[in-house]
């Protein structure tokens, strides 16, 4: 943070100092719970606390046993497979639908734009437990509860708003004369979409897809309602792990998820920079 200007009096200086320290405290409380998990996941004992050996950095106090425990337990392996399978399928559906919706909603001549946007974004705002309960009763009647299709559709519905938001953001300031130019040069509307609109909104589409994937990946409420034992995902398995056999394998999988999240965040950031660079050149 910049040095306080010379004209700041005592109270201003105090205020600045308070602001700084509060900010650091907030950061600390946000990050510490996540960071503390990582060393604990290497605990050789089945405890959720630091042992003496860990605190004195004795190598024998650390081990990979919880990691191997995960990969040798068929329940966890199934959960990991399920999470990726459901996540990827839901992401594909959410991305396709969300992109189409965003492109359509960006048009000036779209009737009832606000109403439709509000409806499409509602899964983000309505408390998840309500959505989940509603989905459970509705999907049960259609025979979609307790199978992959139902879970995937439910997660796609939850992920779509994120795609709509990120794609809409990249479409803001989109120059529609480019579309007219494309048509004028002889390209059919579908071709114009793939050749001209898609490359320019791709960063939004990809970051929307990542958000949709993360939404599905750490979603537990809908899974609790909708999934049968065959569709258990990682969060669901962690949830039951907490209740039934409490041991640091939860911490190990959490550490893996943290690493995955970091990779995704970095990807999103790189994409954002790339699109900013493209736009910078454009200006």
């Amino acid at each position: 943070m910049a040095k306080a200007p010379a004209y700041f009096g005592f109270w201003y200086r105090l205020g600045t100092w308070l602001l700084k320290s509060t900010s650091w405290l907030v950061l600390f409380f946000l990050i510490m719970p996540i960071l503390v998990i990582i060393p604990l996941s290497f605990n050789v004992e089945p405890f959720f606390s630091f042992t003496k050996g860990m605190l004195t950095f004795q190598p024998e106090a650390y081990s990979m046993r919880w990691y191997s425990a995960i990969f040798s337990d068929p329940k966890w392996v199934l959960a990991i497979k399920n999470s990726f399978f459901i996540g990827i399928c839901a992401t594909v559906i959410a991305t396709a639908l969300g992109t189409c919706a965003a492109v359509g909603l960006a048009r000036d001549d779209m009737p009832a734009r606000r109403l439709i946007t509000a409806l499409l974004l509602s899964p983000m705002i309505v408390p998840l437990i309500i959505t989940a309960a509603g989905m459970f009763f509705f999907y049960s009647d259609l025979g979609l509860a307790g199978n992959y299709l139902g879970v995937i559709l439910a997660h796609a519905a939850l992920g779509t708003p994120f795609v709509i938001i990120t794609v809409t953001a990249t479409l803001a300031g989109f120059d529609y004369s480019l579309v007219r130019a494309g048509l004028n040069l002889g390209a059919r509307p579908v071709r114009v979409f793939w050749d001209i609109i898609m490359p320019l909104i791709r960063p939004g589409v990809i970051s929307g897809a990542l958000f949709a994937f993360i939404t599905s990946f750490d979603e537990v409420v809908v899974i609790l309602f909708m999934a049968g034992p065959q569709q258990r995902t990682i969060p669901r398995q962690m949830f039951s792990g907490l209740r039934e056999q409490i041991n640091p394998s939860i911490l190990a999988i959490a550490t893996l998820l943290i690493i995955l999240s970091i990779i995704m965040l970095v990807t999103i950031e790189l994409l954002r920079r790339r699109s900013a660079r493209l736009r910078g050149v454009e200006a």
Partner: protein
Amino acid sequence: MADPVGDKPFLQFTNVKKTYDHKSLVVKDFNLDVAKGEFITLLGPSGSGKTTCLMMLAGFEDVTSGEILINGRSVTSIAPYQRNIGMVFQQYALFPHMTLRENLAYPLKVRKMAKDEINAKVDEYLTLVELQAFGNRHPGQLSGGQRQRVALARALIFAPDIVLMDEPLGALDKKLREQMQFEIKRLHDQLGFTVIYVTHDQTEALTMSDRIAVFNNGIVQQCAAPHVLYERPANLFVADFIGESNKIMGTIAQVGDETVTVRLADGAEVSSLKANCTEIGAPTTISVRPEKLTFTDRLGGACNQIKARFVARHYVGEYIRYQFETADGSELVVKNLNDSSAPQFSAQEEVALAWLAQDSQALDRPAPQKTT
């Protein structure tokens, strides 16, 4: 109004009307015949309907009623991507994610032309607009003038029947604009395409066009060659919109074959070319261009005269601009070449100004103009 070349005009607007809200017409009964290879400009203030006409021709707007015909065939039911009409957009509309070569190749690619043929064409057109060295750059790395040239090349590369230009030079500065006017004219002469050009800049319209259609309030006020438009404006709007115009008020006293006699407020009688005001006793406005209005000693013999008081003399450079006021309070402007004989006057000095009948027009004085 327009003289069709041959029996069937190449491009024809007949009774074209356009409304966006089903209440007011943006374009009211537009008729225009365009010959192949002609350079036609639609000129008018913003909101006069000229861009709408262009958009209807390109297929981006529906025609409310009437017909647009190319080679006698109606285009109203043809999709924009099938019309084969080139267009240069106001903000260039170059694809920012494609290089110049890719931009130019795009219309050929969608037409499924062979790769080496595309490459040859792209090379040819890059050379044509003198951008050979920039083929692999993105539009963002070019200056405004260069982008404009690319936009022009892209609109021409697929050899369209008609090229539309929607205020293509609006975003450029004055120097560059003049350069580009020249460039467009050069390409037009070289390649012989038909141009429909939209602008609100009258100088641009006068220097580039074969014919100009002057729009106001959705109606074509006059469609004629630049010199006709300037020297024989059909009505007061055209006289006012194209260039500067002195307006001298009077009433029609006599009507002849070619000329009319007009009685001015001070009782003096002057003669003027007959235009759209031919009823004896009708109020009329005589329009005289500032460079045609001069001092009595410069025009010997039979000429019209009006007395006015000297107000100001402005030094412009290539000419000197004199401002006078007549007895009824209206302002008169004289543009005199900046030569050694450009006179000096003292304040409030009464001067007799003169002009020739053939340099003036007696125009209908319209009811107070609505501004839209």
